């Protein structure tokens, strides 16, 4: 009986080890790529499935959750610095890609597919390449007669208590505030934030909630991502989208591209480069423009849906994303105290 039990146990352990060994870090060789994704799964997964179909390379993905404020994948990459599991990181904004560069987690890769993407949306050393961008726009309730045209509307006393902003500790709102600090300087940046608070601005948990509040008429306007605005406008909600600060004196609209990043020491570097090439194609940008995320193509001449302006028709906020990443870390204590934490 003991021998039988020993035999059964040994077979079980060996079988399990073989089964799981097949799932190990280097499993699949050049037919597999591991990607960590911060872009919403509902939009990114179809693109990755297209890549699988076209190349026959199996994509294994880890997706972020809204609950991790879209930084879970990046933090997992940081946690795995000494034990890299991922080959590619699909960041939903370049700030995260900059953080990985600064921490020595990514490695340079210059894709030929990105040659005509404007230099402002690429890391000069090739650590990340931007594609398919969101614009930071003002979403305004259609019932509002005097529509705001600048983000300074947040400090306009005539609009006291009528504006909502997403929690500035997370996501693209943090990035935009950091970008403003890099352009205006710390003093003017702090003054803007204080004036906004004095003007009784409301704070929501995410951009979607901000847009919903405006659609419901609880507030007049909010600064959100263009995909949140377009999505709701397509659903027939009473919202209008305003690209802010487009005048001659305006600082322009903050653009948040996705970023493709090659991970240093990843298990499948060959397939990783193929995936990055694929993400940076004009066709991927076209698909993401017509999907519900409605992202703005960065390649010139890519077709866009009618709700979106082409990148060439926008006055873009001229920022150095590396400086924004550093500023974002620097202003965290200020933002926490602004939030009363």
């Amino acid at each position, binding site marked *: 009986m003991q021998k039988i039990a020993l035999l059964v146990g040994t077979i079980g352990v060996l079988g399990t080890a073989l089964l799981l060994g097949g799932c*190990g870090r280097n499993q699949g060789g050049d037919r597999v790529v591991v990607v960590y994704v911060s872009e919403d799964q509902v939009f990114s997964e179809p693109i990755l499935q297209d890549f699988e179909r076209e190349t026959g390379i199996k994509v294994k993905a*880890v997706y972020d*959750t*809204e609950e991790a404020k879209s930084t879970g994948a990046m*933090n997992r990459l940081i946690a795995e610095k000494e034990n890299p*599991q991922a080959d590619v990181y699909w960041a939903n904004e370049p700030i995260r890609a900059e953080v990985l560069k600064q921490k020595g987690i990514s490695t340079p890769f210059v894709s030929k597919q990105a040659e005509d993407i404007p230099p402002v949306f690429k890391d000069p050393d090739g650590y990340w390449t931007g594609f398919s961008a969101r614009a930071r726009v003002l979403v305004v309730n259609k019932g509002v007669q005097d529509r705001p045209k600048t983000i300074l509307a947040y400090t306009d006393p005539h609009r006291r208590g009528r504006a909502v902003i997403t929690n500035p500790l997370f996501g693209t709102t943090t990035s935009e505030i950091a970008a403003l600090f890099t352009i205006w300087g710390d003093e003017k940046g702090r003054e803007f934030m204080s004036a906004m608070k004095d003007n009784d601005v409301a704070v929501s948990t995410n951009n979607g909630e901000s847009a919903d509040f405006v659609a419901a008429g609880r507030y007049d306007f909010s600064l959100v991502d263009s995909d949140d605005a377009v999505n709701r406008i397509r659903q027939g909600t009473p919202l209008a989208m305003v690209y802010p600060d487009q005048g001659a004196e305006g600082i322009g609209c903050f653009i948040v591209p996705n970023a493709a990043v090659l991970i240093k020491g990843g298990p499948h570097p060959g397939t990783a480069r193929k995936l990055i090439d694929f993400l940076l194609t004009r066709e991927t940008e076209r698909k993401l423009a017509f999907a519900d995320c409605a992202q703005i193509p960065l390649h010139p001449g890519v077709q866009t849906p009618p709700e979106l302006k082409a990148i060439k028709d926008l006055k873009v906020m001229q920022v150095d994303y590396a400086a924004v990443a550093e500023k974002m870390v620097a202003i965290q204590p200020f933002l926490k105290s602004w939030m009363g934490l």
Partner: protein
Amino acid sequence: MTRRLFLAFIVLLLLVVGVLPVLSMLVKSLFVEGHFSLVAYGGLLRSARQWTLMGHSMALSSLVTVLTVTAGVPLGILLGKTDLPLRRFFTVLFVIPLLIPPYIVAVSWSDLLGGGGLLAHLAGAEATGAAAGLFFGLPGCVFVLFCVFLPIPILLTMIFLRTIDPGLEEAGRLVAGWGRIVKGITIPLILPGVLLAGMLVFLLSFGEFSVPNFLRYDVFPVESFTQFSAFYNFKAATAAAVPLAAVTFLLLWLESVFLRERTYQLRPSPGAGFSPLIALGAGRRWLLVSVALAGLVIVIVPLVVLVIQSAGAGAYAEALDRAGDSLLRSLAYAVGGATLLTLLGFCTGYLIQTKALPLWRSVDSWTIFLFALPGTVIGIGLISLWNTPRANLVYSTPVIIILGYLAKYTALTSRISVTQLGRIPPSMEEAAEVAGAGWWRRMAFIVAPLARRGLVAGWLVGYIFSLRDTGITMLVYPAGHETLPVRIFTLMANGSAELIAALCMIMIAATLLPAGILWAILEVMTRKAAR
């Protein structure tokens, strides 16, 4: 000797699976650049936010506990002790919310009450604005967790009712009506069960992550998850988990002092089958309507909302297209997890029941402590221990998910085994031993067959809890190995309401179908045993 060696191996296994990860994260949080430091914990005491979070966690858990016990005990008595019609149907009905991931219940009510929900479409957003405002916050969390955990006091009340010697109530009936008997005899005798139910509900609410997170109510598990996942502040995440561990530890200590012996001896009274039922008389019809209404609101309404919401064209086709692989993986991991949980729980239960090693009480306490800890904390512990190149066979494979299941849910299968093994007369094993059978032989041919109902029940519970796990899996799943609950969570970001509802329905079916089949098998086994 064989027995003691094998059980020592089981203890070692439990240490590696559950205790080491938690210890690892605790130790790492106490060192900064190689030097001992309490800096992560300093913030815990200084920050007003921590006290706010503690207040929120305590308020949520206390309210859920009071409400579930207040409603669950009378319901348990109604379903287990009276002649109310359809008692078995209602019992099964009320158990359903406990079997599915709690956030699915939250999603369903959000689809009904939320800003763009079904009610807003029917009655207008202005009319339902207040309800939506209330739902996203403490009241919504309390309501959802009340629905989810209500079965715990109901079931424990029913189980403890079966441990009462019918002779006591019969004697009472000679001098008093049922009202006085229930108040003076029944309730005092089931009080340990009521307290156990209250403690379990409190701990589970205290550690619940997904519902407060979905309904935007800041509590400690959400803070711990956010510190780890959004800020990657490992030490702050551990520090945020300490109050959870402390409260858990305190409650378990109280349980070990006041209740443990009572719950070890949990077995039906010999005459339980002949226990007299309370005749409800004229109030029977009204009580039936009340129970039916409660079942309608707590169980049927959320299910119907999901059915309506998922009825859009192609929602199920899209759901299966997007999450078919996750569904299969979930089923495979749940089956694997349940099988290992059953084996480990059986061995642990045997150790506790036979007291074969002096460590038996500690082993019981460890497993329950791990069960009560939030899944996110165990997940962080697992990453802390296994995220090294040498351990990739664990870290980069589904083994890490299975280890998470074993760490968190062994207490369930262990306690079921303890109860089942307690019903086997020790003389059975002793007789086999005298006849010359070795320990393995006695286990395989005497103990395990006699405990088969407990094994099947343990497997069923292990399957359900492995399948519905979100907190651990979401943190540790390797690339390409996400489960269905995790896929639902990740698709919630901008996924359509129809798609999410369809995925929730698929999740419910994946839980209830196998659970129903095994439940039926258990019923057959029970009837055979009764003959």
